[in-house]
C-alpha cells in the first residue's frame, strides 16, 4: 500500500496544526460557527442528532493492521467503543468531542491517516474495488490510480469550492464491484489488445433525490491522460455547475440539463488544452506509485486444497462460510475473504474496538497485513491462503465476525438513519435488524441466494437503496415513519435504478412485505440458479405489485 513520504507527513501534520488552531479559536469564541463550519466539514467533522460525528478517510478502502489498531484506539479513547464503516469505504465515529478532534487527527496522522475532504463541497474519498490487486478477474489494480487521484485532489486550490460534493470511483475488473456508474466520475480500468492500460470514463452518475446512471463519455482514455482529462471534467463542472440550488448542484444535473454530447464536447475542448501540460502522467510516475501496490510474496501453499476439503467435510458451518465468503484469488492457493459486519440481528457496518483489534491481529497473522473496507460495509482480507482459512474462521467466530452471508439477504447495507443522522426522516438500523432476524436461517438464505437489500433513512440515499435488488427508503409521513420499497436496482455492469413499487409500509409491516417479495420470487423463478435480480428483470414489477397490493390495488398503487 501507499506509504507517506516526507512531503505527505508534513502535509497532514500541518493540516492538524491548522485545524487545532481553528478549533481553539472556535472554542474561545474567536471564530463564529458560520466561518468555522466549512472548515470543520473539510476535516470530516459533522454535527449530527446527538453529537458531533467524525468521518475518517480510508483511501480506496485500504489499510493495514497498525492503522486498524489506531481506529480501535480512537473508538476506545475518544468515542463509545465502536465505529461505523460506510458505503464510501470510510469509518465514522458518532460521539467525538470537538475539543478532542485535533488530538484524534494527530493520532491518525501518526499512522498515515486523515479526515481531509471527507465532507464539504470538494472531491471526496476516491473509492475502488475492494478486491483490487487480488481478484482473479482483474485486468489491473485500480488502486495506484485511486492514489494518484487522491494526491491530485487533496487541497487542490482550484477545486476546493465546488458547487457540491464530488465522488469518484475506480474499478479494474471486468465486473464492476465499485458501483462506478452511480458516481460523479466512474473509471473502468481496462487493457486493450496491445496490453496498454486505459479507462472508460463515465460521468454524471449519482443517487440521492435524483438518481441517475453515469454516461460513458470516453472510451479507453490512455492512463497517461487520467489527470488532464479528470481536470477537464472538474473545470467544466466548476464553471457550469449550478450554485443557485443545493439540490441541483451535482454534475449529474449538469449532464442532464446540458446534454451529454454537448458537455462531453466542452470537456474534450478543455482536455485538448491540458493534455500536453504538466498534468500528463509520465510512465515513471505511474510505475513509482504502482510499486507501492505490489502484491505480497504469495508462496505456494498447495496443502490448503486437501486441508480445506477435509475441514469442510468435518464442519458444515465452516463449509458454508467458505462457500459464501471466500472468492477466487489470482493465485490458486489463496482466497479473498469477506469478514461480515452483518451478524444476524446486528447493526450493519458497525465494529467494536475489540473487533477491530482482533481484525488487526488476524490481518498480520493470516493476511499479509492487508485489510480492505468494502462499500457494502464489510471487511475484506484480500490475500488469505486456503490453508489458513480454518484457523482464521475459528478466530473470527467467537467475535461474531464469521457470519456466512456475503451477498445474501442478511448482508444488508444500511445508513445510520434517524438513530444518528440529523438529515434522516426514518430509522434504518432497526429495519435492517428485523429483516436480518426474519431471514437469519442459513438454509433459508441459501435457498433465496444472492439478494442485496439496501436501506436509506432519507432521500440522500447514503444506504444506496436506489441500487438495491430490494431498496428501502424511509420517509416521514404525518409524523410517522413509512418505508417505500424499490425493486430491481443494481450497481453492477448493468446498473439500474430500482422501480418504486407502490405505497409505503409502516415499520411493523416492512418485514412481512419483504417476505412477500421473496416468496413471490421463489414462486416464479425458473430455477434456483435464477437470481432475484435475473428473475425481476425477466418478469418486471407486476407480479410483485400484485403480491404486495392485490390485483385492483396494484393498478391503483
Amino acid at each position: 500500500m501507499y506509504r507517506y513520504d516526507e512531503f505527505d507527513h508534513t502535509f497532514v501534520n500541518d493540516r492538524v496544526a491548522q485545524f487545532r488552531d481553528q478549533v481553539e479559536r472556535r472554542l474561545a469564541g474567536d471564530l463564529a460557527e458560520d466561518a468555522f463550519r466549512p472548515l470543520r466539514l473539510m476535516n470530516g467533522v459533522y454535527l449530527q442528532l446527538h453529537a458531533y460525528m467524525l468521518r475518517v478517510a480510508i483511501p480506496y478502502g485500504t489499510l493495514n493492521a497498525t492503522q486498524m489498531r489506531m481506529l480501535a484506539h480512537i473508538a476506545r479513547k475518544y468515542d463509545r467503543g465502536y465505529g461505523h464503516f460506510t458505503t464510501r469505504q470510510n469509518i465514522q465515529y458518532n460521539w467525538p468531542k470537538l475539543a478532542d478532534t485535533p488530538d484524534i487527527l494527530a493520532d491518525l496522522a501518526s499512522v498515515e491517516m486523515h479526515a481531509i475532504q471527507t465532507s464539504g463541497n470538494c472531491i471526496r474519498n476516491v473509492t475502488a474495488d475492494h478486491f483490487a490487486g487480488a481478484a482473479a478477474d482483474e485486468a489491473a489494480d485500480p488502486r495506484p490510480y485511486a492514489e494518484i487521484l487522491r494526491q491530485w485532489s487533496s487541497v487542490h486550490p482550484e477545486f476546493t469550492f465546488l458547487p457540491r460534493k464530488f465522488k469518484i470511483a475506480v474499478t479494474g475488473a471486468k465486473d464492476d464491484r465499485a458501483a462506478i456508474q452511480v458516481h460523479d466520475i466512474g473509471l473502468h480500468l481496462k487493457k486493450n489488445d496491445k496490453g496498454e492500460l486505459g479507462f472508460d470514463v463515465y460521468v454524471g452518475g449519482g443517487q440521492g433525490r435524483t438518481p441517475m446512471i453515469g454516461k460513458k463519455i470516453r472510451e479507453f482514455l490512455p492512463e497517461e491522460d487520467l489527470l488532464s482529462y479528470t481536470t477537464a471534467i472538474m473545470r467544466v463542472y466548476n464553471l457550469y455547475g449550478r450554485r443557485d440550488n443545493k439540490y441541483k448542484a451535482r454534475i449529474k444535473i449538469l449532464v442532464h440539463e446540458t446534454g451529454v454530447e454537448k458537455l462531453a464536447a466542452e470537456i474534450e475542448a478543455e482536455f485538448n488544452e491540458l493534455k500536453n501540460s504538466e498534468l500528463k502522467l509520465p510512465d515513471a510516475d505511474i510505475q513509482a506509485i504502482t510499486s507501492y501496490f505490489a502484491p505480497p510474496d504469495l508462496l505456494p501453499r498447495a496443502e490448503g486444497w486437501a486441508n480445506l476439503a477435509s475441514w469442510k467435510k468435518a464442519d458444515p458451518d465452516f463449509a458454508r462460510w467458505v462457500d459464501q465468503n471466500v472468492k477466487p484469488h489470482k493465485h490458486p492457493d489463496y482466497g479473498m475473504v469477506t469478514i461480515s459486519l452483518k451478524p444476524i440481528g446486528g447493526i450493519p457496518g458497525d465494529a467494536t474496538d475489540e473487533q477491530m483489534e482482533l481484525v488487526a491481529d488476524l490481518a498480520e497473522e493470516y493476511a499479509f497485513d492487508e485489510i480492505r473496507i468494502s462499500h457494502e460495509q464489510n471487511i475484506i482480507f484480500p490475500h488469505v491462503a486456503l490453508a489458513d482459512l480454518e484457523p482464521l474462521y475459528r478466530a473470527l467466530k467467537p467475535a461474531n465476525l464469521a457470519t456466512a452471508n456475503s451477498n445474501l439477504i442478511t448482508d444488508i447495507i444500511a445508513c445510520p438513519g434517524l438513530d444518528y443522522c440529523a438529515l434522516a426522516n426514518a430509522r434504518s438500523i432497526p429495519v435492517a435488524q428485523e429483516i436480518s432476524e426474519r431471514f437469519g436461517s442459513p438454509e433459508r438464505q441459501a435457498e433465496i441466494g444472492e439478494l442485496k437489500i439496501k436501506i436509506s433513512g432519507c432521500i440522500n440515499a447514503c444506504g444506496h437503496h436506489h441500487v438495491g435488488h430490494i431498496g428501502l427508503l424511509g420517509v416521514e409521513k404525518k409524523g410517522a415513519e413509512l418505508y417505500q420499497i424499490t425493486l430491481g436496482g443494481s450497481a453492477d455492469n448493468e446498473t439500474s435504478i430500482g422501480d418504486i413499487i407502490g405505497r409505503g409500509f409502516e415499520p411493523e409491516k416492512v418485514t412481512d412485505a419483504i417476505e412477500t417479495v421473496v416468496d413471490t420470487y421463489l414462486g416464479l423463478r425458473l430455477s434456483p440458479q435464477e437470481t432475484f435480480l435475473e428473475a425481476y428483470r425477466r418478469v418486471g414489477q407486476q407480479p410483485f405489485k400484485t403480491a404486495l397490493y392485490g390485483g385492483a390495488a396494484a393498478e391503483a398503487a
Partner: protein
Amino acid sequence: MSTSQVLTANRLTDGIAVWYDKAGNWNEWIGRSEVVHTKDDAERLEAIGKKAYANNEVLDVNLVEVEEIEGQIRPRRLRERIRAEGPTIEYMI
C-alpha cells in the same frame, strides 16, 4: 398559541444535545426543560437561544413542540424523541 415548546440545541464543546431548563442551564436531560405555552414566552426563549449561540455556548438552536404527559415531557416529532432518548437500538448485539 396553545402549543407547548422547549428550547433545544447542541453543546459547542462536545455536540451533545441539550435542553434549556428552568434553572437557566443547558441540560442533557429534557425532563427539566422550561416548557412554554405562549407566543411571548416562546419569543423569550428564542432570544435566549440566539444569545447562547452568539456566546458560543451552543449551536443548532431550535424551539421544538412537546406534549406533557403525566409530568413527562415528550417531543411530538419522532426525530426529537430520538434526540432526547438516544439511539433506539441496543448497541452491538
